[in-house]
């Protein structure tokens, strides 16, 4: 590294050799140059560290509910409970939750906040069972130019990126070129990583091969699915509904209006899905929440480094077509 920097420095000095400095200024230049390279070196180390052990921030301000800076979604606040979602394609070890109140309220102390992981659509309330798919239409994945759309039930949802496509659990092998007229289809909002599966999606549990049909923000169990007709089932875990992580809120040491706790996500890591659903029940009366902040972290450990390497290997094999994406 030092050799490389010396060589680089020499090259640069040759390039601008018409600009001579006196001995004193040249010394200052060398010191500053050394400091510059040291800063850049640590910056590079920091970026590599952030790639291997990433963190991601989410926020929601109740003072500006329409702000584009709000990355926490589907916030549902009632008199006694609050639930909300944070969606991420990455896997994390823990999440630090911070609730900022308008006024200090000691009744929030020790209240438990819980989280579950799956897809938003699997957290939908359960509707009536379906005997079979009958006249229900399963969504298809089609490509038009360089874009991929979820198409079905007279609606089409464009997908914003490959990351969103994969984080929604879709398989590239199921994308077909469009050959039909879609001009009468209603074009829905662009799907990003916060998106929920649209009506017409079929979910399949990995544990017991149960199938669910998503329709108008409800999930309907298909009692007799004709598996050969189902093309784009999204894998989910039935245990996602029962597996929860909890932590008890504590008053911040520095700020009286803030309550914090840290959730361990290790048991949720193996579950399919990109959406973390947070829930806080038994809210004290007259509580006014000003802001919610979440910080997802992957802390540096041997296990997380091995996880990074296996994830890297999986993505490289998939990228070069050696292995299929799961």
């Amino acid at each position, binding site marked *: 590294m030092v050799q490389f920097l010396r060589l680089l420095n020499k090259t640069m000095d040759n390039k601008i050799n*018409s600009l001579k*400095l006196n001995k004193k*200024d040249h010394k200052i230049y060398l010191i500053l140059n050394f400091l510059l390279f040291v800063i850049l070196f640590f910056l590079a180390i920091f970026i590599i560290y952030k790639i291997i052990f990433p963190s991601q921030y989410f926020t929601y301000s109740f003072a500006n509910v329409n702000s584009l800076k709000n990355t926490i979604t589907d916030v549902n606040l009632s008199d006694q409970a609050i639930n909300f979602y944070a969606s991420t394609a990455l896997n994390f070890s823990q999440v630090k939750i911070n609730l900022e109140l308008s006024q200090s309220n000691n009744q929030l102390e020790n209240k438990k906040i819980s989280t579950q992981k799956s897809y938003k659509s699997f957290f939908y309330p359960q509707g009536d069972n379906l005997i079979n798919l009958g006249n229900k239409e399963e969504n298809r994945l089609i490509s038009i130019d360089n874009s991929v759309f979820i198409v079905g039930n007279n609606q089409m949802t464009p997908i914003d990126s490959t990351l969103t496509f994969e984080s929604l659990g879709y398989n590239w092998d199921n994308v077909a070129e469009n050959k039909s007229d879609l001009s009468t289809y209603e074009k829905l909002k662009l799907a990003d990583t916060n998106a929920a599966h649209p009506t017409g999606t079929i979910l399949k549990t990995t544990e017991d091969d149960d199938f669910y049909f998503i329709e108008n923000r409800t999930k309907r169990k298909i009692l007799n699915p004709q598996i050969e007709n189902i093309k784009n089932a999204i894998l989910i875990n039935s245990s996602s509904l029962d597996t929860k992580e909890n932590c008890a809120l504590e008053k911040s040491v520095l700020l009286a209006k803030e309550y914090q706790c840290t959730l361990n996500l290790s048991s949720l890591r193996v579950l399919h899905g990109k959406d973390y659903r947070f829930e806080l029940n038994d809210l004290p009366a007259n509580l006014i929440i000003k802001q919610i902040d979440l910080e997802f972290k992957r802390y540096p450990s041997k296990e997380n480094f091995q996880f990074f390497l296996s994830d890297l290997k999986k993505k490289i094999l998939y990228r070069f077509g050696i292995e299929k994406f799961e």
Partner: protein
Amino acid sequence: MMPFKINSNQKIIIYKLLNNLLVVLLIFWGLALMGAGFLPEFISTQFSFLKLTLLLLAIIFLIHWISEDFQLNNVELKKNDKTLPILPIIFSASTLTLSILNFSLFPIIISIIITLAILFYFYKITLK
């Protein structure tokens, strides 16, 4: 106009440091771009290409602004610097190869023809 007074030697120091910073950040930008080509969205989820590109443009602007006072006529490409275009050619070829992976044949042919044409004119401009 400088917002504060600095002498010509200090300007030279700043100019040289900015040049060094530009080269290191360009190398970093190239490596990050190659990394993103190798594994799309693995790097970009934690790292903003837009911010780095804006920083590079800001540094280029600063270098241009400071260098207005200098006589830089002696700065020329040396003979052995003619090997320098090989780096962008290797870089372009690698990023092109990574970007056309999994493409069908027709877009691959079009992309290769256009890239070869650009590289040919790049060669004509820099080496002729």
